[in-house]
């Protein structure tokens, strides 16, 4: 069942990439949206929509990171930190931890704002750094944030985190135990993220990002305020992650520091690399593919293998190997990803003489 949904979504994405007719594209997008909104009434169960809702959160995260890495060309290896900040915003302000029970909807916006603020705070001193140095600084930040959440036991519950988070309500109706509200909110979130991404890409700011990505020095001399454009990318990208964090925490009803480690940041980078950095549709496909492999395909192969050979192999052990192989394989053989962005592809294929380091 889950494959039906994933297949429809991915097929629609590929179709959107192939068609060049604007009206055809719009039609496909509307059809896909209608299908994803209506089909759950007839087809599927809670387990399926739970996976799909998680997948949708990852799509949002990937779209946010795409603004930083794909559009502006800044490799952020600590993106999970903003995810943690969003999740802990909900965890601390909508739980018995402090007896605060702020509404879910307000916290979505607060988390986005807080994540953006931290993005800007991290970015302000560090964005002057180039390429791989920036990557390492963000990695350090990504290590520090969960560690701080883990150490401040008094406020954050320490290594155990905070449990029994509030169940959100919608005009007085509790979400209850159903996963459907999260699925629909995440779908809406993706739609908004897609719309924002697309408009940003075509905006003045988006063109500035592209110029910086291709040649920072030239962009600077063409009058682009490089630092401010990069800061905007960091803050906007982080805000997506903050919203994703609230959704994730509310659905799981739990936050703990080990959910936001380096693996999460690398997982999201792998989604971008697989799909094609910079290409919005490609990023959606990459994140769908990886989530489906992680949460549906691997467990199923696992149980098939176990049934066939009477073993108890644990294929969930192979996640790192899979992400690693994707990063290496794609970089060596198809650096533009499965569904490439045209400009990015051009950059990657004659990079030898390119001056831009990032």
């Amino acid at each position, binding site marked *: 069942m889950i494959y039906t949904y994933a297949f429809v979504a991915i097929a629609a994405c590929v179709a959107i990439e192939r068609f060049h007719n604007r009206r055809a594209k719009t039609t496909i997008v509307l059809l896909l949206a209608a299908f994803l909104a209506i089909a759950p009434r007839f087809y599927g169960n809670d387990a399926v929509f739970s996976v799909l809702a998680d997948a949708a959160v990852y799509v949002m995260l990937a779209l946010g990171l795409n603004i930083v890495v794909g559009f502006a060309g800044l490799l952020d290896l600590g993106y999970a930190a903003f995810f943690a900040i969003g999740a802990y915003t909900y965890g601390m302000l909508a739980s018995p931890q402090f007896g605060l029970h702020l509404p879910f909807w307000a916290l979505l916006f607060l988390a986005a704002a807080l994540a953006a603020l931290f993005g800007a705070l991290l970015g302000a*001193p560090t964005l002057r750094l180039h390429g*791989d140095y920036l990557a390492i*600084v963000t990695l350090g930040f990504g290590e*520090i944030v969960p560690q701080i959440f883990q150490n401040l036991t008094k406020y954050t519950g320490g290594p155990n985190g905070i449990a029994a988070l509030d169940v959100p309500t919608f005009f007085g109706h509790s979400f209850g135990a159903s996963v459907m509200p999260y699925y629909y909110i995440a779908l809406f979130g993706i739609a908004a993220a897609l719309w924002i991404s697309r408009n940003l890409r075509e905006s003045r700011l988006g063109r500035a990002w592209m110029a910086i990505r291709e040649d920072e020095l030239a962009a600077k001399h063409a009058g682009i305020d490089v630092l401010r454009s990069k800061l905007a990318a960091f803050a906007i990208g982080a805000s997506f992650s903050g919203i994703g964090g609230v959704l994730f925490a509310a659905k799981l009803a739990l936050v703990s520091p080990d959910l936001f480690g380096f693996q999460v940041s690398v997982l999201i980078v792998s989604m971008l690399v697989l799909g094609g950095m910079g290409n919005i549709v490609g990023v959606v496909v990459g994140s769908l593919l990886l989530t489906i492999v992680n949460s549906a395909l691997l467990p199923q192969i696992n149980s098939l293998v176990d049934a066939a050979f009477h073993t108890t192999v644990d294929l969930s*052990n192979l996640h790192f*190997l899979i992400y690693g192989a994707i990063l290496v394989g794609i*970089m060596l053989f198809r650096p533009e990803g499965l569904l490439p962005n045209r400009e990015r592809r051009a950059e990657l294929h004659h990079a030898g003489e*390119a001056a831009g*380091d*990032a």
Partner: protein
Amino acid sequence: MHEFLAQLANGVELGAIYALIALGYTLVYGILELINFAHGDVYTFGSFVALGILVGLRAAGVLHGAGLILGIAAALIAAILASALLNAGIERLAYRRLRKAPRLAPLITAIGVSFMLENLIELWQGSAPVPFPNVIPNPQLHFGALEVGVQQIVVVALAIATMIALHFFVQRSKLGKAMRAVAQDRDAASLVGINVDRTIAITFLIAGALAGVAGFVGGVSFGSAWFLNGFGAGLRAFTAAVLGGIGNIAGAMLGGFLIGMLESFSTWLIGGQWSNVAVFSVLILVLVFRPSGLLGETLPEKV
């Protein structure tokens, strides 16, 4: 005072290990401008190879008297060879094709290699730390208020001997000269007849060998090996390399000892759970305020 000196000795011991790993980052960065993200895992691999040899020899019952010295030497040499070959293999298979790609491509590849190695080592050795055979006798020696173990002395002495050997290799030998030439200007080096591919491969061999020594002394010092050791140790060592000035060999050694001290004293004074935060804060502060490090020179932006 007593505790202070003990932490000092501890910091020097940690620092010696970080310095050895940091040298590997710095050598590779110096020649390719690549952060070899997998370097920490090459160190872990060396640690497990030494562990395997020692466990095997102990089971065979040869680890006493002269056999002990030979056994330790065998484990050390095996770790060096294994790590060197692994590192050079990674360069050949994963990085060489990307030498002309934009700089982020090899970095992303290196992260991928690191994840693969961690997973493979986990599949090979399990996800729990494995105890490292306690082969070096460890009586405590007293120098006034300072108390150090023989193991600590062996670890630091081995590390320093390795660094001295590296220094002479890089400064005096023909290959070392070729390495410095390629690091300065790859095209010019190739014009004067230096085989650039071979020189880079040798740099990776040497960096891997240093990681092998570190893997052995790290196993002895920490008393265990774990598949994720390389991630934390690698980041600390990288911080050390950056602190000293990346690409600068003396800087990597200095940085290693400073980071070792920082970890040891932050663990003592503010608690082990904050030592990560302290180390990474230093990394961020150095990169922001003095990206060229303590001993590095500021390079103009390349156009």
